[in-house]
Protein backbone atom coordinates (compact mmCIF):
# COMPACT_ATOMS: atom_id res chain seq x y z
CA UNK A 1 0.00 0.00 0.00
CA UNK A 2 2.76 2.41 0.94
CA UNK A 3 4.53 1.74 -2.34
CA UNK A 4 2.12 3.87 -4.32
CA UNK A 5 2.34 6.85 -2.01
CA UNK A 6 4.13 10.00 -2.92
CA UNK A 7 7.16 10.85 -0.73
CA UNK A 8 5.43 14.06 0.42
CA UNK A 9 2.47 12.17 1.78
CA UNK A 10 4.79 9.74 3.54
CA UNK A 11 6.59 12.56 5.35
CA UNK A 12 3.21 14.02 6.30
CA UNK A 13 2.18 10.69 7.77
CA UNK A 14 5.45 10.48 9.68
CA UNK A 15 4.86 13.92 11.18
CA UNK A 16 1.29 13.00 12.14
CA UNK A 17 2.52 9.72 13.64
CA UNK A 18 5.26 11.24 15.79
CA UNK A 19 3.22 14.34 16.60
CA UNK A 20 0.29 12.40 18.00
CA UNK A 21 2.65 10.04 19.83
CA UNK A 22 4.35 13.03 21.43
CA UNK A 23 1.02 14.50 22.55
CA UNK A 24 -0.05 11.21 24.15
CA UNK A 25 3.34 10.60 25.77
CA UNK A 26 3.44 14.10 27.25
CA UNK A 27 -0.14 13.85 28.52
CA UNK A 28 0.66 10.53 30.21
CA UNK A 29 4.01 11.41 31.71
CA UNK A 30 3.64 15.13 32.48
CA UNK A 31 2.78 14.68 36.19
CA UNK A 32 5.89 12.54 36.62
CA UNK A 33 8.08 14.99 34.74
CA UNK A 34 6.69 17.72 36.94
CA UNK A 35 7.53 15.61 40.03
CA UNK A 36 11.09 15.23 38.79
CA UNK A 37 11.54 18.97 38.25
CA UNK A 38 9.95 19.91 41.58
CA UNK A 39 12.07 17.42 43.52
CA UNK A 40 15.29 19.25 42.73
CA UNK A 41 14.03 22.85 42.73
CA UNK A 42 14.85 25.36 45.44
CA UNK A 43 11.81 26.72 47.28
CA UNK A 44 12.58 30.28 46.24
CA UNK A 45 12.51 29.17 42.59
CA UNK A 46 9.42 27.00 43.06
CA UNK A 47 7.25 29.61 44.71
CA UNK A 48 7.84 32.48 42.30
CA UNK A 49 5.15 32.96 39.70
CA UNK A 50 7.42 35.06 37.51
CA UNK A 51 9.78 32.10 36.94
CA UNK A 52 9.42 29.63 34.10
CA UNK A 53 8.27 26.55 36.06
CA UNK A 54 9.81 24.08 33.59
CA UNK A 55 13.46 25.11 33.94
CA UNK A 56 15.85 25.53 36.85
CA UNK A 57 16.13 29.26 37.48
CA UNK A 58 18.39 28.60 40.47
CA UNK A 59 20.84 25.76 41.06
CA UNK A 60 19.22 22.34 41.75
CA UNK A 61 19.04 21.31 45.40
CA UNK A 62 19.02 18.08 47.39
CA UNK A 63 17.23 19.77 50.30
CA UNK A 64 13.83 18.18 49.57
CA UNK A 65 15.29 14.68 49.49
CA UNK A 66 17.09 15.33 52.77
CA UNK A 67 13.83 16.56 54.31
CA UNK A 68 11.88 13.58 52.97
CA UNK A 69 14.23 10.97 54.39
CA UNK A 70 15.25 12.71 57.63
CA UNK A 71 12.19 14.55 58.79
CA UNK A 72 9.26 12.47 57.60
CA UNK A 73 8.27 8.82 58.07
CA UNK A 74 8.79 8.18 54.34
CA UNK A 75 11.45 5.51 54.81
CA UNK A 76 9.28 3.81 57.40
CA UNK A 77 6.33 3.80 54.96
CA UNK A 78 8.52 2.26 52.26
CA UNK A 79 9.63 -0.46 54.67
CA UNK A 80 6.03 -1.07 55.80
CA UNK A 81 4.98 -1.43 52.17
CA UNK A 82 7.80 -3.86 51.42
CA UNK A 83 7.02 -5.92 54.53
CA UNK A 84 3.27 -6.11 53.90
CA UNK A 85 3.91 -6.74 50.20
CA UNK A 86 6.25 -9.65 50.92
CA UNK A 87 3.85 -11.33 53.33
CA UNK A 88 0.86 -10.82 51.04
CA UNK A 89 2.82 -12.28 48.11
CA UNK A 90 3.68 -15.36 50.17
CA UNK A 91 0.05 -15.87 51.26
CA UNK A 92 -1.17 -15.30 47.71
CA UNK A 93 1.20 -17.90 46.28
CA UNK A 94 0.37 -20.42 49.01
CA UNK A 95 -3.35 -20.11 48.30
CA UNK A 96 -3.36 -19.52 44.54
CA UNK A 97 -0.81 -22.02 43.18
CA UNK A 98 -2.54 -25.17 44.51
CA UNK A 99 -5.96 -23.71 43.76
CA UNK A 100 -5.07 -22.84 40.17
CA UNK A 101 -3.57 -26.27 39.56
CA UNK A 102 -6.53 -28.00 41.12
CA UNK A 103 -8.99 -26.07 38.95
CA UNK A 104 -7.12 -26.83 35.73
CA UNK A 105 -6.11 -30.46 36.22
CA UNK A 106 -8.26 -31.97 38.93
CA UNK A 107 -11.44 -29.98 38.69
CA UNK A 108 -12.89 -31.58 35.62
CA UNK A 109 -15.92 -29.77 34.24
CA UNK A 110 -16.64 -27.62 37.29
CA UNK A 111 -13.02 -26.44 37.45
CA UNK A 112 -13.33 -23.91 34.68
CA UNK A 113 -16.66 -22.63 36.01
CA UNK A 114 -15.39 -22.21 39.54
CA UNK A 115 -12.32 -20.48 38.07
CA UNK A 116 -14.49 -17.91 36.34
CA UNK A 117 -16.50 -17.51 39.54
CA UNK A 118 -13.34 -16.78 41.48
CA UNK A 119 -12.20 -14.34 38.80
CA UNK A 120 -15.49 -12.45 39.16
CA UNK A 121 -14.86 -11.86 42.85
CA UNK A 122 -12.10 -9.58 41.58
CA UNK A 123 -14.95 -7.27 40.57
CA UNK A 124 -16.41 -7.10 44.07
CA UNK A 125 -14.44 -3.98 44.70
CA UNK A 126 -12.95 -3.03 48.06
CA UNK A 127 -15.17 0.05 47.84
CA UNK A 128 -18.24 -2.10 48.59
CA UNK A 129 -16.45 -4.14 51.23
CA UNK A 130 -14.42 -1.60 53.19
CA UNK A 131 -17.18 -0.70 55.65
CA UNK A 132 -18.04 -4.25 56.79
CA UNK A 133 -14.34 -5.12 56.52
CA UNK A 134 -13.51 -2.43 59.09
CA UNK A 135 -15.73 -4.35 61.52
CA UNK A 136 -14.12 -7.67 60.61
CA UNK A 137 -10.69 -6.19 61.29
CA UNK A 138 -11.89 -4.73 64.61
CA UNK A 139 -13.31 -8.08 65.68
CA UNK A 140 -10.00 -9.77 64.88
CA UNK A 141 -8.29 -7.19 67.11
CA UNK A 142 -6.11 -5.97 64.23
CA UNK A 143 -7.17 -2.31 64.15
CA UNK A 144 -4.39 0.14 63.41
CA UNK A 145 -1.94 -2.70 62.76
CA UNK A 146 -0.02 -3.72 59.66
CA UNK A 147 -1.35 -7.24 60.23
CA UNK A 148 -4.82 -6.05 59.27
CA UNK A 149 -3.43 -5.32 55.81
CA UNK A 150 -1.64 -8.68 55.64
CA UNK A 151 -4.89 -10.50 56.42
CA UNK A 152 -7.18 -8.47 54.14
CA UNK A 153 -5.04 -7.70 51.04
CA UNK A 154 -5.00 -11.29 49.70
CA UNK A 155 -8.76 -10.86 49.19
CA UNK A 156 -7.97 -8.86 46.05
CA UNK A 157 -4.69 -10.55 45.04
CA UNK A 158 -5.79 -14.21 45.30
CA UNK A 159 -8.70 -14.21 42.79
CA UNK A 160 -6.69 -12.65 39.96
CA UNK A 161 -3.61 -14.71 40.85
CA UNK A 162 -5.63 -17.93 40.54
CA UNK A 163 -6.95 -16.76 37.19
CA UNK A 164 -3.47 -15.91 35.86
CA UNK A 165 -2.01 -19.19 37.10
CA UNK A 166 -4.83 -21.20 35.52
CA UNK A 167 -3.70 -19.79 32.19
CA UNK A 168 -0.14 -20.88 32.82
CA UNK A 169 -1.00 -24.37 34.06
CA UNK A 170 -3.27 -24.99 31.08
CA UNK A 171 -0.30 -24.45 28.78
CA UNK A 172 1.69 -27.27 30.41
CA UNK A 173 1.24 -30.57 28.56
CA UNK A 174 -0.40 -33.18 30.85
CA UNK A 175 2.04 -35.85 29.57
CA UNK A 176 4.72 -34.22 31.67
CA UNK A 177 3.03 -35.04 34.96
CA UNK A 178 1.92 -38.41 33.70
CA UNK A 179 5.52 -39.26 32.89
CA UNK A 180 6.55 -38.19 36.38
CA UNK A 181 3.83 -40.32 37.90
CA UNK A 182 4.94 -43.33 35.90
CA UNK A 183 8.37 -42.71 37.39
CA UNK A 184 6.86 -43.21 40.83
CA UNK A 185 5.75 -39.76 41.93
CA UNK A 186 2.29 -39.29 43.35
CA UNK A 187 0.04 -36.70 41.65
CA UNK A 188 0.98 -34.24 44.38
CA UNK A 189 4.64 -35.12 44.02
CA UNK A 190 4.45 -34.52 40.28
CA UNK A 191 2.86 -31.13 40.96
CA UNK A 192 5.65 -30.15 43.37
CA UNK A 193 8.59 -31.58 41.41
CA UNK A 194 7.49 -31.03 37.82
CA UNK A 195 4.78 -28.39 37.52
CA UNK A 196 6.05 -25.74 39.93
CA UNK A 197 9.61 -25.62 38.57
CA UNK A 198 8.47 -25.12 34.97
CA UNK A 199 5.89 -22.51 36.01
CA UNK A 200 8.48 -20.10 37.38
CA UNK A 201 7.62 -17.34 34.91
CA UNK A 202 3.92 -17.60 35.72
CA UNK A 203 4.65 -17.51 39.43
CA UNK A 204 6.94 -14.51 38.95
CA UNK A 205 4.11 -12.74 37.12
CA UNK A 206 1.84 -13.34 40.08
CA UNK A 207 4.52 -12.07 42.47
CA UNK A 208 4.90 -8.81 40.55
CA UNK A 209 1.16 -8.38 40.10
CA UNK A 210 0.34 -8.97 43.77
CA UNK A 211 3.14 -6.74 44.99
CA UNK A 212 2.12 -3.82 42.78
CA UNK A 213 -1.51 -4.19 43.89
CA UNK A 214 -0.31 -3.93 47.50
CA UNK A 215 1.71 -0.80 46.70
CA UNK A 216 -1.31 0.77 45.00
CA UNK A 217 -3.89 -0.11 47.67
CA UNK A 218 -5.47 2.92 49.27
CA UNK A 219 -8.91 2.59 50.82
CA UNK A 220 -8.36 -0.35 53.20
CA UNK A 221 -5.21 1.22 54.60
CA UNK A 222 -6.95 4.55 55.03
CA UNK A 223 -9.83 2.82 56.81
CA UNK A 224 -7.95 0.43 59.11
CA UNK A 225 -4.81 2.36 60.06
CA UNK A 226 -4.70 5.53 62.15
CA UNK A 227 -1.14 5.79 63.48
CA UNK A 228 1.23 7.63 61.13
CA UNK A 229 4.06 5.11 61.52
CA UNK A 230 1.80 2.22 60.42
CA UNK A 231 0.91 3.56 56.97
CA UNK A 232 2.01 2.24 53.63
CA UNK A 233 3.62 4.60 51.17
CA UNK A 234 0.65 5.29 48.91
CA UNK A 235 -1.51 6.38 51.85
CA UNK A 236 1.16 7.88 54.10
CA UNK A 237 2.41 10.32 51.47
CA UNK A 238 -0.98 11.86 50.54
CA UNK A 239 -2.26 11.77 54.13
CA UNK A 240 0.68 13.25 56.00
CA UNK A 241 2.48 15.31 53.39
CA UNK A 242 -0.58 16.83 51.67
CA UNK A 243 -3.19 17.25 54.33
CA UNK A 244 -0.73 18.28 56.99
CA UNK A 245 -0.36 21.95 57.93
CA UNK A 246 2.52 22.70 55.62
CA UNK A 247 2.54 21.78 51.95
CA UNK A 248 6.09 20.75 51.30
CA UNK A 249 5.74 20.28 47.56
CA UNK A 250 9.42 19.48 46.98
CA UNK A 251 9.48 16.66 49.51
CA UNK A 252 6.05 15.48 48.45
CA UNK A 253 6.98 15.20 44.79
CA UNK A 254 10.25 13.46 45.68
CA UNK A 255 8.29 10.92 47.70
CA UNK A 256 5.80 10.27 44.91
CA UNK A 257 8.54 9.84 42.34
CA UNK A 258 10.75 7.57 44.42
CA UNK A 259 7.86 5.28 45.36
CA UNK A 260 6.50 5.14 41.79
CA UNK A 261 9.63 4.50 39.75
CA UNK A 262 10.55 0.96 40.82
CA UNK A 263 6.96 -0.20 40.33
CA UNK A 264 6.77 1.45 36.92
CA UNK A 265 9.98 -0.14 35.70
CA UNK A 266 9.25 -3.67 36.92
CA UNK A 267 5.60 -3.64 35.84
CA UNK A 268 6.51 -2.73 32.29
CA UNK A 269 8.18 -6.05 31.67
CA UNK A 270 5.12 -8.00 32.72
CA UNK A 271 2.24 -5.92 31.44
CA UNK A 272 1.42 -8.14 28.44
CA UNK A 273 0.84 -11.12 30.72
CA UNK A 274 -1.61 -9.21 32.91
CA UNK A 275 -3.47 -8.11 29.82
CA UNK A 276 -3.88 -11.67 28.57
CA UNK A 277 -5.47 -12.37 31.97
CA UNK A 278 -7.77 -9.37 31.70
CA UNK A 279 -8.98 -10.32 28.25
CA UNK A 280 -10.38 -13.61 29.60
CA UNK A 281 -8.75 -15.55 26.81
CA UNK A 282 -10.81 -13.59 24.28
CA UNK A 283 -7.43 -12.94 22.70
CA UNK A 284 -4.96 -15.74 22.22
CA UNK A 285 -1.62 -14.19 23.21
Amino acid at each position, binding site marked *: *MTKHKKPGKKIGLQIA*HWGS*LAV*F*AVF*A*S*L*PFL*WMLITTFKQDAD*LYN*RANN*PFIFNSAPTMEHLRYLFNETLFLRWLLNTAWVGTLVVIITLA*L*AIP*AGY*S*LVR*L*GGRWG*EKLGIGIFLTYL*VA*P*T*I*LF*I*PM*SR*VVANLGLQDSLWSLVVVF*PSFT*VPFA*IWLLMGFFKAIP*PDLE*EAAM*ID*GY*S*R*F*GAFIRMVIPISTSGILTVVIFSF*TLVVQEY*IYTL*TFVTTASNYTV*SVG*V*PTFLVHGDVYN*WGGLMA*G*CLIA*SLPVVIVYNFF*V*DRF*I*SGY*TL*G*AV*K*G
Partner: protein
Amino acid sequence: METATPAVKGALRSRNPHLSFFFDNEKVLGLLMIAPAVLYILALVGFPLIMAFVYSFSDITIGSADFGFVGLENIESLIGDFEFKLALKNTILFTAVSMIIVLVLAKILALILVKDFRGKFIVRALILMPYVAPISLGVIGWLWMLDSIYSPINWLLQHTGLFGPDFWPMWLGKPNLAISAIIAVHVWRMLPLATVIMLAGLASIPQDIQDAALVDGAGYFRQLFQITIPMMLPIMLVAVLFGIVFTATDIIIILVLTRGGPYNSTQVLVSKAFYTGIDAGDLATGAATALFLFPLLAAVAIFMLRIARRTEVA
Protein backbone atom coordinates in the same frame (compact mmCIF):
# COMPACT_ATOMS: atom_id res chain seq x y z
CA MET B 1 -11.06 -41.05 30.87
CA GLU B 2 -7.91 -39.07 31.01
CA THR B 3 -8.01 -38.77 34.78
CA ALA B 4 -8.48 -42.45 35.63
CA THR B 5 -5.32 -44.06 34.33
CA PRO B 6 -2.68 -41.81 35.87
CA ALA B 7 -4.47 -42.01 39.22
CA VAL B 8 -4.37 -45.78 39.17
CA LYS B 9 -0.76 -45.86 38.10
CA GLY B 10 0.20 -43.27 40.71
CA ALA B 11 -1.55 -45.15 43.49
CA LEU B 12 0.25 -48.33 42.52
CA ARG B 13 3.68 -46.77 42.53
CA SER B 14 3.50 -44.32 45.43
CA ARG B 15 5.94 -45.05 48.14
CA ASN B 16 3.70 -44.25 51.08
CA PRO B 17 0.37 -46.09 50.99
CA HIS B 18 -1.15 -43.99 53.81
CA LEU B 19 -0.53 -40.72 52.07
CA SER B 20 -1.63 -41.99 48.72
CA PHE B 21 -5.27 -41.55 49.70
CA PHE B 22 -4.66 -37.80 49.84
CA PHE B 23 -1.97 -37.40 47.21
CA ASP B 24 -3.24 -39.71 44.51
CA ASN B 25 -6.98 -39.73 44.77
CA GLU B 26 -7.65 -36.94 42.32
CA LYS B 27 -10.98 -35.91 43.81
CA VAL B 28 -9.62 -35.69 47.36
CA LEU B 29 -6.41 -33.97 46.28
CA GLY B 30 -8.32 -31.54 44.09
CA LEU B 31 -10.54 -30.56 47.01
CA LEU B 32 -7.62 -30.25 49.40
CA MET B 33 -5.74 -27.97 47.03
CA ILE B 34 -8.65 -25.67 46.27
CA ALA B 35 -10.14 -25.58 49.79
CA PRO B 36 -7.81 -23.01 51.44
CA ALA B 37 -8.35 -20.46 48.67
CA VAL B 38 -12.10 -20.97 48.55
CA LEU B 39 -12.44 -20.76 52.35
CA TYR B 40 -10.33 -17.59 52.40
CA ILE B 41 -12.43 -15.97 49.65
CA LEU B 42 -15.66 -16.96 51.39
CA ALA B 43 -14.42 -15.51 54.68
CA LEU B 44 -12.95 -12.27 53.35
CA VAL B 45 -15.02 -11.53 50.25
CA GLY B 46 -18.25 -13.50 50.66
CA PHE B 47 -18.86 -12.77 54.35
CA PRO B 48 -18.14 -9.00 54.13
CA LEU B 49 -20.33 -8.81 51.03
CA ILE B 50 -23.25 -10.34 52.95
CA MET B 51 -22.51 -8.00 55.86
CA ALA B 52 -22.60 -5.05 53.46
CA PHE B 53 -26.22 -5.96 52.72
CA VAL B 54 -27.02 -6.63 56.38
CA TYR B 55 -25.54 -3.29 57.48
CA SER B 56 -27.52 -1.47 54.83
CA PHE B 57 -30.75 -2.56 56.49
CA SER B 58 -29.56 -1.84 60.04
CA ASP B 59 -28.74 1.10 62.31
CA ILE B 60 -25.14 0.07 63.11
CA THR B 61 -22.56 2.73 64.02
CA ILE B 62 -18.83 2.49 64.67
CA GLY B 63 -19.28 2.65 68.47
CA SER B 64 -22.19 0.24 68.86
CA ALA B 65 -21.67 -3.38 69.86
CA ASP B 66 -24.99 -4.66 68.53
CA PHE B 67 -27.53 -3.27 66.13
CA GLY B 68 -31.17 -3.45 65.18
CA PHE B 69 -32.83 -3.83 61.82
CA VAL B 70 -34.55 -0.87 60.29
CA GLY B 71 -35.60 -2.38 56.98
CA LEU B 72 -35.47 -0.04 54.03
CA GLU B 73 -35.19 3.08 56.18
CA ASN B 74 -31.57 3.85 55.21
CA ILE B 75 -32.21 3.37 51.53
CA GLU B 76 -35.36 5.50 51.66
CA SER B 77 -33.67 8.35 53.48
CA LEU B 78 -30.76 8.17 51.01
CA ILE B 79 -33.06 8.40 48.01
CA GLY B 80 -34.63 11.53 49.47
CA ASP B 81 -31.22 13.06 50.22
CA PHE B 82 -30.06 15.79 47.85
CA GLU B 83 -26.34 15.13 48.47
CA PHE B 84 -26.78 11.42 47.80
CA LYS B 85 -28.52 12.12 44.50
CA LEU B 86 -25.68 14.43 43.54
CA ALA B 87 -23.12 11.73 44.41
CA LEU B 88 -25.02 9.16 42.35
CA LYS B 89 -25.28 11.56 39.44
CA ASN B 90 -21.57 12.37 39.64
CA THR B 91 -20.59 8.69 39.73
CA ILE B 92 -22.56 8.08 36.53
CA LEU B 93 -21.35 11.29 34.89
CA PHE B 94 -17.65 10.77 35.66
CA THR B 95 -17.77 7.12 34.58
CA ALA B 96 -19.75 7.64 31.37
CA VAL B 97 -17.93 10.73 30.09
CA SER B 98 -14.46 9.48 30.91
CA MET B 99 -15.17 6.06 29.35
CA ILE B 100 -16.34 7.61 26.08
CA ILE B 101 -13.23 9.78 25.88
CA VAL B 102 -11.01 6.86 26.88
CA LEU B 103 -12.50 4.60 24.20
CA VAL B 104 -11.94 7.10 21.40
CA LEU B 105 -8.41 8.04 22.51
CA ALA B 106 -7.40 4.44 23.23
CA LYS B 107 -8.55 3.36 19.78
CA ILE B 108 -6.46 6.09 18.16
CA LEU B 109 -3.45 5.40 20.34
CA ALA B 110 -3.67 1.64 19.75
CA LEU B 111 -3.78 2.17 15.97
CA ILE B 112 -0.62 4.28 16.26
CA LEU B 113 1.19 1.89 18.57
CA VAL B 114 0.37 -1.26 16.63
CA LYS B 115 3.01 -0.37 14.05
CA ASP B 116 6.62 -1.15 14.79
CA PHE B 117 8.92 1.80 15.11
CA ARG B 118 12.17 2.70 16.77
CA GLY B 119 11.85 3.61 20.44
CA LYS B 120 8.47 1.90 20.80
CA PHE B 121 9.38 0.35 24.13
CA ILE B 122 10.20 3.74 25.67
CA VAL B 123 7.07 5.41 24.28
CA ARG B 124 4.92 2.56 25.53
CA ALA B 125 6.56 2.73 28.96
CA LEU B 126 5.82 6.47 29.18
CA ILE B 127 2.22 5.98 28.12
CA LEU B 128 1.74 3.17 30.64
CA MET B 129 3.02 5.22 33.59
CA PRO B 130 -0.35 6.57 34.79
CA TYR B 131 -1.76 3.07 35.11
CA VAL B 132 1.32 1.48 36.56
CA ALA B 133 2.40 4.00 39.19
CA PRO B 134 0.52 3.99 42.51
CA ILE B 135 -2.62 6.00 41.71
CA SER B 136 -2.60 8.12 44.82
CA LEU B 137 0.95 9.28 44.10
CA GLY B 138 0.34 10.05 40.44
CA VAL B 139 -2.75 12.03 41.37
CA ILE B 140 -0.70 14.13 43.81
CA GLY B 141 1.33 15.14 40.76
CA TRP B 142 -1.94 16.43 39.25
CA LEU B 143 -2.85 18.17 42.50
CA TRP B 144 0.38 20.13 42.23
CA MET B 145 -0.08 20.79 38.51
CA LEU B 146 -3.58 22.16 39.16
CA ASP B 147 -2.42 24.27 42.12
CA SER B 148 -4.42 27.47 42.48
CA ILE B 149 -1.32 29.71 42.51
CA TYR B 150 1.60 27.85 40.94
CA SER B 151 -0.11 25.74 38.26
CA PRO B 152 2.42 25.14 35.46
CA ILE B 153 -0.48 24.40 33.11
CA ASN B 154 -1.83 27.90 33.61
CA TRP B 155 1.66 29.33 33.22
CA LEU B 156 2.15 27.50 29.94
CA LEU B 157 -1.24 28.50 28.54
CA GLN B 158 -0.69 32.11 29.56
CA HIS B 159 2.80 32.34 28.12
CA THR B 160 1.77 30.77 24.85
CA GLY B 161 -0.97 33.37 24.64
CA LEU B 162 -3.91 30.97 24.91
CA PHE B 163 -4.96 32.55 28.20
CA GLY B 164 -5.17 36.32 28.65
CA PRO B 165 -2.80 37.95 31.17
CA ASP B 166 -5.48 38.11 33.87
CA PHE B 167 -6.99 34.66 33.27
CA TRP B 168 -5.78 32.19 35.89
CA PRO B 169 -8.45 29.49 36.47
CA MET B 170 -8.59 27.78 39.86
CA TRP B 171 -9.08 24.27 38.52
CA LEU B 172 -10.12 22.65 41.78
CA GLY B 173 -11.90 25.67 43.26
CA LYS B 174 -14.87 26.04 40.91
CA PRO B 175 -17.47 23.23 40.60
CA ASN B 176 -17.46 22.98 36.81
CA LEU B 177 -13.69 23.19 36.50
CA ALA B 178 -13.25 20.65 39.30
CA ILE B 179 -15.61 18.23 37.52
CA SER B 180 -13.65 18.61 34.27
CA ALA B 181 -10.38 18.15 36.12
CA ILE B 182 -11.61 14.93 37.77
CA ILE B 183 -12.80 13.56 34.42
CA ALA B 184 -9.47 14.47 32.82
CA VAL B 185 -7.54 12.65 35.53
CA HIS B 186 -9.82 9.60 35.16
CA VAL B 187 -9.08 9.60 31.43
CA TRP B 188 -5.37 9.97 32.16
CA ARG B 189 -5.53 7.02 34.51
CA MET B 190 -7.63 4.61 32.36
CA LEU B 191 -6.21 5.38 28.92
CA PRO B 192 -3.11 3.15 29.27
CA LEU B 193 -5.03 0.03 30.31
CA ALA B 194 -7.65 0.48 27.61
CA THR B 195 -4.92 1.04 25.02
CA VAL B 196 -2.98 -2.07 25.94
CA ILE B 197 -6.14 -4.20 25.92
CA MET B 198 -7.04 -2.84 22.47
CA LEU B 199 -3.50 -3.45 21.24
CA ALA B 200 -3.91 -7.09 22.23
CA GLY B 201 -7.18 -7.10 20.27
CA LEU B 202 -5.63 -5.50 17.18
CA ALA B 203 -2.76 -7.97 17.21
CA SER B 204 -5.25 -10.84 17.25
CA ILE B 205 -6.90 -9.91 13.93
CA PRO B 206 -5.51 -12.39 11.43
CA GLN B 207 -3.29 -10.74 8.83
CA ASP B 208 -4.89 -12.71 5.96
CA ILE B 209 -8.27 -11.09 6.59
CA GLN B 210 -6.68 -7.68 6.28
CA ASP B 211 -4.79 -8.74 3.17
CA ALA B 212 -7.96 -10.11 1.61
CA ALA B 213 -9.76 -6.84 2.30
CA LEU B 214 -6.88 -4.96 0.71
CA VAL B 215 -6.99 -7.15 -2.39
CA ASP B 216 -10.72 -6.53 -2.62
CA GLY B 217 -9.95 -2.83 -2.66
CA ALA B 218 -11.11 -1.77 0.79
CA GLY B 219 -9.71 1.59 1.82
CA TYR B 220 -8.34 2.47 5.24
CA PHE B 221 -11.64 3.65 6.75
CA ARG B 222 -13.63 0.86 5.18
CA GLN B 223 -11.18 -1.60 6.76
CA LEU B 224 -11.34 0.24 10.07
CA PHE B 225 -15.12 0.28 10.34
CA GLN B 226 -16.00 -2.97 8.60
CA ILE B 227 -13.20 -5.24 9.77
CA THR B 228 -11.08 -3.88 12.59
CA ILE B 229 -13.78 -2.46 14.84
CA PRO B 230 -16.30 -5.33 14.44
CA MET B 231 -13.58 -7.91 15.06
CA MET B 232 -12.41 -6.03 18.11
CA LEU B 233 -15.84 -5.62 19.66
CA PRO B 234 -15.49 -8.32 22.33
CA ILE B 235 -12.10 -7.00 23.37
CA MET B 236 -13.36 -3.42 23.41
CA LEU B 237 -16.18 -4.60 25.62
CA VAL B 238 -13.62 -6.04 28.05
CA ALA B 239 -11.80 -2.70 28.11
CA VAL B 240 -15.06 -0.87 28.75
CA LEU B 241 -16.12 -3.24 31.52
CA PHE B 242 -12.84 -2.92 33.38
CA GLY B 243 -12.91 0.82 32.81
CA ILE B 244 -16.39 1.07 34.32
CA VAL B 245 -15.38 -0.94 37.36
CA PHE B 246 -12.16 0.97 37.98
CA THR B 247 -13.71 4.40 37.38
CA ALA B 248 -17.02 3.97 39.22
CA THR B 249 -15.43 2.41 42.29
CA ASP B 250 -12.49 4.81 42.48
CA ILE B 251 -12.14 6.91 45.58
CA ILE B 252 -8.50 7.95 45.36
CA ILE B 253 -8.81 10.61 42.67
CA ILE B 254 -11.66 12.32 44.54
CA LEU B 255 -10.07 12.07 47.98
CA VAL B 256 -6.69 13.39 46.85
CA LEU B 257 -7.83 16.09 44.43
CA THR B 258 -10.99 17.65 45.86
CA ARG B 259 -12.21 15.66 48.90
CA GLY B 260 -15.63 15.95 47.24
CA GLY B 261 -15.55 19.74 47.10
CA PRO B 262 -16.09 22.51 46.24
CA TYR B 263 -19.56 22.42 47.88
CA ASN B 264 -19.86 18.61 47.39
CA SER B 265 -19.88 19.19 43.62
CA THR B 266 -17.46 16.29 42.97
CA GLN B 267 -18.69 13.91 45.67
CA VAL B 268 -19.23 10.36 44.34
CA LEU B 269 -20.89 7.33 45.95
CA VAL B 270 -17.67 5.89 47.31
CA SER B 271 -16.32 9.11 48.77
CA LYS B 272 -19.72 9.83 50.31
CA ALA B 273 -19.77 6.31 51.76
CA PHE B 274 -16.31 6.87 53.23
CA TYR B 275 -17.15 10.20 54.82
CA THR B 276 -20.46 9.03 56.33
CA GLY B 277 -19.43 5.46 57.14
CA ILE B 278 -15.87 5.81 58.44
CA ASP B 279 -15.27 9.52 59.19
CA ALA B 280 -18.71 10.15 60.72
CA GLY B 281 -19.07 6.60 62.06
CA ASP B 282 -22.49 5.86 60.54
CA LEU B 283 -21.62 2.41 59.20
CA ALA B 284 -25.20 1.62 58.18
CA THR B 285 -25.73 4.63 55.92
CA GLY B 286 -22.18 4.32 54.58
CA ALA B 287 -22.70 0.67 53.65
CA ALA B 288 -26.05 1.49 52.04
CA THR B 289 -24.43 4.26 49.98
CA ALA B 290 -21.64 2.02 48.70
CA LEU B 291 -24.13 -0.75 47.96
CA PHE B 292 -25.67 1.32 45.19
CA LEU B 293 -22.62 0.28 43.16
CA PHE B 294 -23.54 -3.36 43.47
CA PRO B 295 -26.10 -3.50 40.61
CA LEU B 296 -23.48 -1.94 38.34
CA LEU B 297 -20.82 -4.47 39.32
CA ALA B 298 -23.29 -7.33 39.00
CA ALA B 299 -24.18 -6.20 35.48
CA VAL B 300 -20.49 -6.04 34.58
CA ALA B 301 -19.99 -9.53 36.00
CA ILE B 302 -22.81 -10.91 33.85
CA PHE B 303 -21.29 -9.38 30.72
CA MET B 304 -17.90 -10.82 31.63
CA LEU B 305 -19.47 -14.26 32.06
CA ARG B 306 -21.01 -14.01 28.61
CA ILE B 307 -17.69 -13.08 27.04
CA ALA B 308 -15.93 -15.90 28.87
CA ARG B 309 -18.58 -18.39 27.76
CA ARG B 310 -18.39 -17.27 24.15
CA THR B 311 -14.60 -17.69 24.04
CA GLU B 312 -14.91 -21.05 25.74
CA VAL B 313 -17.18 -22.30 22.96
CA ALA B 314 -15.03 -20.81 20.20
